[in-house]
């Protein structure tokens, strides 16, 4: 009987819902600590409202990128029940593709100016096209080479280990090819980094950068577009069907292999767009750029309930905001924002493993 303390998820046939003491203790403890911090912050304010708003601003921008990457995880998990561990590295490839496009346009002299200065809008569009295209193709081949042969593998861990292998391969190959030094994005003048609008507030000033606004708007457009795509088109319908029940979908004449590779391509497109955004907004990047955003986006996908597309979007935004507001709220060093992100992951999985936004957790328990 004592073991029931360890065993909160087991459904008893009697239908009596057991009280999960571990969850309650952890949840109440976390809540008490948050209230304690809030009281301290209200009684002894360390940051003005301007700071909080600028943290929120940073969080929204990063959150948009997390959301785009998280959608990729959620889509792939829904269709193949696989954590695409190399997803962050696909984002990194998109980042590199955008970088090389901008470099090429910068070097392309037209008269006494160059292509980037003359057609900045076109340059940005083509950079995104290159980034999404490269990520899409690499996503397609990733699925074909590393995952498809393992679809019916007898070893349960085989696809995940293969995914880790793919991740290591892409990362080190990029490091060897392009070098380990950090590179800087050359932005077109339209989206110069750091330029933006300064908004005067009571006791300070918030800087809203052009790159940030651009990234957030583009991320929102892509998310809405994806949502409509998944809801309205035939491919979206088959993706939803496969993620609900693979066998039945197959019986209904859906080619699940093709749906899987198309899902990888879609998630590659979103990751590539996030990669180019990352480069445009943050500037510095190297082959390692995809690792942390990848894991954090997975956290976001879990936060929203994996397999749930609107959940992944909301989860990404929430994670971005919490990560940038959290250190100030908890009164700790800003170095530790990664710790906050991963702690959220652990807390969510302890408290509500099906995610914050899952509706029918009982029928679709994926943990």
């Amino acid at each position, binding site marked *: 009987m004592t*073991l029931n303390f*360890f*065993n*909160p*998820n087991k459904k008893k046939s009697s239908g009596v819902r057991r009280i999960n003491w*571990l969850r309650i203790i*952890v949840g109440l403890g976390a809540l008490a600590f948050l209230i304690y911090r809030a009281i301290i912050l209200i009684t002894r304010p360390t940051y003005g409202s301007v700071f909080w708003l600028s943290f929120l601003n940073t969080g929204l921008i990063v959150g948009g990128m997390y959301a785009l990457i998280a959608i990729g995880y959620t889509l792939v998990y829904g269709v193949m029940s*696989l*954590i695409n561990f190399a997803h962050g590295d696909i984002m990194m490839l998109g980042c590199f593709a955008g970088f*090389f496009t901008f*470099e090429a346009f910068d070097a392309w002299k037209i008269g006494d100016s160059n292509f980037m200065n003359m057609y900045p809008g076109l340059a940005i569009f083509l950079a995104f096209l290159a980034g999404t295209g490269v990520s899409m193709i690499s996503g397609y081949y990733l699925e074909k*080479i*590393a995952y498809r*042969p*393992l679809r019916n*593998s*007898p*070893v*349960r*861990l*085989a*696809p*995940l*280990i*293969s995914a*880790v*292998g*793919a*991740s*290591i*391969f*892409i*990362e*080190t*190959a990029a490091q*060897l*090819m*392009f*070098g*380990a030094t950090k590179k800087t994005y050359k932005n077109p003048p339209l989206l110069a980094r750091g330029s933006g609008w300064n908004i005067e507030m009571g006791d300070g000033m918030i800087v809203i950068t052009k790159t940030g606004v651009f990234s957030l708007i583009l991320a929102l457009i892509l998310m809405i577009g994806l949502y409509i795509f998944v809801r309205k088109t035939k491919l979206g319908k088959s993706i939803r069907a496969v993620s609900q029940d693979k066998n039945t979908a197959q019986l209904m004449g859906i080619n699940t292999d093709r749906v899987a590779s198309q899902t990888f391509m879609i998630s590659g497109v979103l990751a590539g767009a996030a990669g180019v955004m990352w480069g445009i907004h943050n500037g510095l990047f190297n082959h390692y750029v995809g*690792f942390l955003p990848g*894991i954090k986006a*997975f*956290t976001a996908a*879990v936060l929203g309930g994996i397999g749930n597309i609107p959940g992944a979007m909301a989860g990404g935004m929430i994670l971005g905001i919490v990560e940038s507001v959290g250190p100030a709220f908890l009164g*700790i*060093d800003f*170095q*530790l924002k*990664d*710790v906050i*992100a*991963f*702690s959220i*992951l*652990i807390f969510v*999985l*302890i408290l509500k*493993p099906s995610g914050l936004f899952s509706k029918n957790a009982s029928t679709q328990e994926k*943990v």
Partner: protein
Amino acid sequence: MKNTSAVAVRKGVLTAIILIFLQLINMTAALGAMLEKMITSAKSVKSVSPLFYGVIVALVAFFIAFSFIRSLYRPGKPKPTPLYCLGESLVIGLVSGVLIAALNALISTLNANGVKIRTYLDMMAPDAIKTAAFGREIPVMIGIYLALTIAGALLGGLIAWIIKSTGQPANAWAALQRAIAENHTIRFIRRNKIVRILVIIAILIFVFALPFILSPYGISILGLVLIYAVLGLGLNLIVGLSGQLVFGFVAFYAIGAYTFALLTAPKPLGLEFSFPIAFLVALAISGLSGVIVGLPIMNLRGDYLAIVTLGFAEIIRSLVNSNLLADFTGGPQGIKDIGQPRQPGFIESLIGKPMPENIYFLYVIMIFFAVTLYIVYRLQYSRVGRSWEAMREDETVAQACGVATSYYKVLAVIIGAVIAGAAGALYASRNTYIGPGDFVFMVSVNSLAVIVVGGMGSIPGALIGAFIIKGVPELLRDLENYRMVVFGVLLIAMMIIRPEGLLPIRRKKIYAEPDKDLEILKKELKP
């Protein structure tokens, strides 16, 4: 037949992609240099000679053509004629040769025009471009590339055809094995108990003498391999036996190492405990961390567990690295002057002088490895081990059979954590310095790779895996930069070709033989 020609063109493109990739990461030259070193037995090769560079290019085409022609022999299909095989190989060689030559012509032209390729492609220094062009003019270079790939592909196709049409090496190998199996002397030696004991004693003597035979470099590599083998044995309990995928194994390793370091080092805390006490405390603390991690995660399965433990490891690393705990853990600077075990007095009285430090420490590691091996072996074949295996195969069935799955899951994590803590403490003591850089995500991946390569749940597999993952790259120092690339490909290929590992665990198979069993039953039931 038209269909296979299209496949041949695709294989040619594949060959070209592999060649281009190898050239862009400059691996062709590194492989060539390694080959040159092996054949000419030169001490060090500064720049590879064109001959060996070309051999590597040809070898790639050789292997692709070889495997392609072999794949043409399928049951139910007509056997391809030799001329046809050669034709297909020619297509592969031609396509790949044209593509790789085109790339090199492009790069050489750009280089000649003064474009600094190196700013974008890190490995494409002017020297490397020159080597790839065989130091010749562009038209000559194109000819050389075409000749190399075509020759390689034709040779590969020819050999594949010979092997397949004569079936020779396979048949000879089978005959040899049959002969060995039927030979009475060999069978006697194999079955004899005395011979077996003698072999074990010889191995023990060899192992005991090993630290004195090896060079200091060999001793340090063997120590590292054994530490990784201990780590692999610990992870084997969690992943291989109980079937929980833990990705953040480095967290326990780091906790063991840091506990040991803080207790013995003079700097941040100034405790300077002796080795055994600090070691035991390190084990206890890492076991405690196993409880803390194990309790909340035991309801998670598979992929979720992997990511949560990965997050836990990243939390530990960020905390160790941060300024928040810098006064306590040394922050990014790490901890220096970590204590080492003192030699007991009898060694000195036995051999007359104190044993060299590194040799003594290798013995310490060996003893810990042996102890871990014993514990893990006993666990695996105990009630606990069987419960773990049952849980891994099917959790629901195990539960129905009365296995308290949650308890055993947490137990596996705790024991694994203690073993990892021991490995961490040994590592800290061996290096006398640790920092946050020693406990990156790659350590988790490496220890997972140890058991994946060796075979999940297999104890000898962990040792073999540790040797392959940590020992072989040290031996192939020329390929140091490329080992992670090779490793990534190896992981994928291994999962596809041999997912059970190199030395998979042999399970006793119990079959019901209806006719025979029924006879036995009838006999036994007779009054």
